[in-house]
């Protein structure tokens, strides 16, 4: 098990700064998720930790040791790729055994270790098959087995679930999390899927434009986004961001509920909500509309879970409310979150 420390890490491709001065530390046994849109530098960061990419500047420490100049094979890291990168000409058995052979593990112990890794992922029956004879989910398990077989100190996972269909992905996510809990290997996981990030991560690192925007637990990042980018990136539908005169006001679509539905009236901010359109998604209802008298020109989305029995029709105006602590304020110029203020009283 290992800690990872990253100091002022930078990677340039020509004039482009793919990773732009990142400081980060990953704790032992932690499941850290790098989250961001494509091109934000998360995969480049991961590849630099792996040693597949050389940083332009900065240090990478694994287990307290500077690994800047070490090749990947000397870093004791295992990596699972988005494409799984299984060796197509080898059987599953040979795929899993490959890292052991490459590292000169004693020959006699290899079959047993391969069997053990295969059993961990329930792929014992496929050991003699070639990767092309396996389904996407099975391939993903083989890739994981190949990664764990040599007991690495650090796991790097590059969007390993994105090639699975939606149904399988949820299952695989759960398995992955349980598995990581069990073996307790420090894990860095790259994804652009905020649901995966929320579900898997002990902490989430939100990245954009090669920089870290926020680091925190899923709840922290979701509830208290550091800036408008994080607020808009996490959550589906994302946080409503309404541009006021002196600041941007944000609130989550599922926190803005009909006044009658709120359990207590304490610290509630009531607002008139004009509904323009209703989308019934089965488990939720999405209401599209405007805040009638406060922000008539900004679109607002509200997410009503199906448990809220409140009749809504398009064109209607209803009294909704939000708790004061659920309203976030962002600086209009920088987008950074600012101190809460008595915004509504003014209006």
């Amino acid at each position, binding site marked *: 098990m290992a800690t990872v420390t990253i100091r002022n890490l930078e990677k340039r491709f020509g004039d482009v700064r793919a990773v732009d001065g990142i400081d980060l530390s990953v704790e032992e046994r932690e499941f850290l998720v790098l989250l961001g849109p494509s091109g934000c530098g998360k995969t480049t960061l991961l590849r630099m930790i792996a040693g*597949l990419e050389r940083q332009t500047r900065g240090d990478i420490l694994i287990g307290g040791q500077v690994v800047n100049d070490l090749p*990947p094979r000397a870093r004791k890291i295992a*990596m699972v790729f988005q494409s799984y*990168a299984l060796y*197509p*000409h080898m059987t599953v058995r040979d795929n899993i055994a490959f*890292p052991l*052979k*490459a590292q000169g593990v004693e020959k006699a112990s290899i079959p047993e270790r391969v069997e053990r890794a295969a059993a961990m992922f329930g792929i014992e029956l496929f050991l003699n098959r070639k990767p092309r004879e396996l389904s996407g989910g099975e391939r993903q398990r083989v890739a994981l087995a190949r990664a764990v077989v*040599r007991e690495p100190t650090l796991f790097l996972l590059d969007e390993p679930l994105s090639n699975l269909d939606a149904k399988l992905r949820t299952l695989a996510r759960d398995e992955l999390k349980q598995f990581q809990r069990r073996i307790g290997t420090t894990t860095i996981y790259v994804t652009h899927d905020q649901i995966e990030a929320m579900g898997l991560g002990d902490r989430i690192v939100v990245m954009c434009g090669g920089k870290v925007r926020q680091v925190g637990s899923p709840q922290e990042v979701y509830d208290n986004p550091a800036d408008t980018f994080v607020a808009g990136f996490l959550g589906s539908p994302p946080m409503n961001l309404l541009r006021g005169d002196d600041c941007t006001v944000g609130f989550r679509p599922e926190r803005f509920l009909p006044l009658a539905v709120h359990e207590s009236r304490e610290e509630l901010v009531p607002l008139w909500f004009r509904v323009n359109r209703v989308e019934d998604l089965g488990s939720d209802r999405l209401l599209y509309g405007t805040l009638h008298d406060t922000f008539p020109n900004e679109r607002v989305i509200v997410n009503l879970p199906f448990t809220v029995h409140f009749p809504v029709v398009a064109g209607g105006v209803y009294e909704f409310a939000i708790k004061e602590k659920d309203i976030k304020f962002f600086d209009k110029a920088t987008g950074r979150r600012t101190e809460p203020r008595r915004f509504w009283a003014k209006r």
Partner: protein
Amino acid sequence: MKQTAGDLPARPADTGFFGRLADDEKVLGRLMLAPAITYIVALIGFPLLLALFYSVSNVTVGTHGWPSFVGLANFRHAIGNPTFPRALWNTLVFALVSQFFVMILATILAISLQREFRGKWVVRLMILLPWVAPISLGSIGWLWMFDSVYSVINWTGRALGIFGKDTWPIWLGQPTLAMGSVITVHVWRLLPLATVILLGGLSGIPKDIHDAAQMDGAGVLRHHFQITVPLVRPIALVALLFGTVYAFTDMIVIYVLTRGGPYETTQVLSTLAFFTGIDGGDLGGGAAIALFLFPVLAACAVLILRFARQAEVT
């Protein structure tokens, strides 16, 4: 808005002959295939049948009318000719040795050309040039370089002091050197094709696979021989078989450089067939010699198709 049939623009009533033709997939398909089929039938199928027919007849360039059937006499005669076993042996040496060097050099070149370096396109162009230039012109260039009196190789060697006072190799006049020379030129000529094929095969390997091998701790040799080589093998075999077919059938290099000499030491089946059938006028005998290669080449063709399919799957 829902669109009804009435909203669609009416189809012009008269699309003309070519318009109707272009709309009829069946006719158009056949029409498009026709040139290829004509080409294959006229330039491959017909000559092959003609060769089969000639090989069992007593036809010569002077034959008027219908030649008579002689059974396998031409084949028996060819095998009885003392030059024949020599040519068969030379063909094998020429094809296998040249392919051996082509594959090794092409692998080295393809791997180096995968890397990024300054002036890469110039190197690529230079390597492709032998393939682009007409073979006969290239061979004539080599003929001058191998000239017994003016050989630029010999004069350069002497000027640099590599060749001593008594050393003056006659490249195309000494048996072993002559074979070496024709093989060298053949390698020079086939290298571009093999390099390009291998380069295609190498760049077809996903980058993730190479990254995974690095992460798994494979060193340079293991990476090359256990990952890269097996993955590029199906395509490399296609290059090898193509090259082998070329080496077995092509006679231009030898025809231009040595004409099979000295003392038949560079005579191969294709040149022997040419000299017997065309220069010697014995069309039946020439056809019989040429057909000796047919089973080998047919086997090569079958293998090429199989490996090509294998390369598609992986």
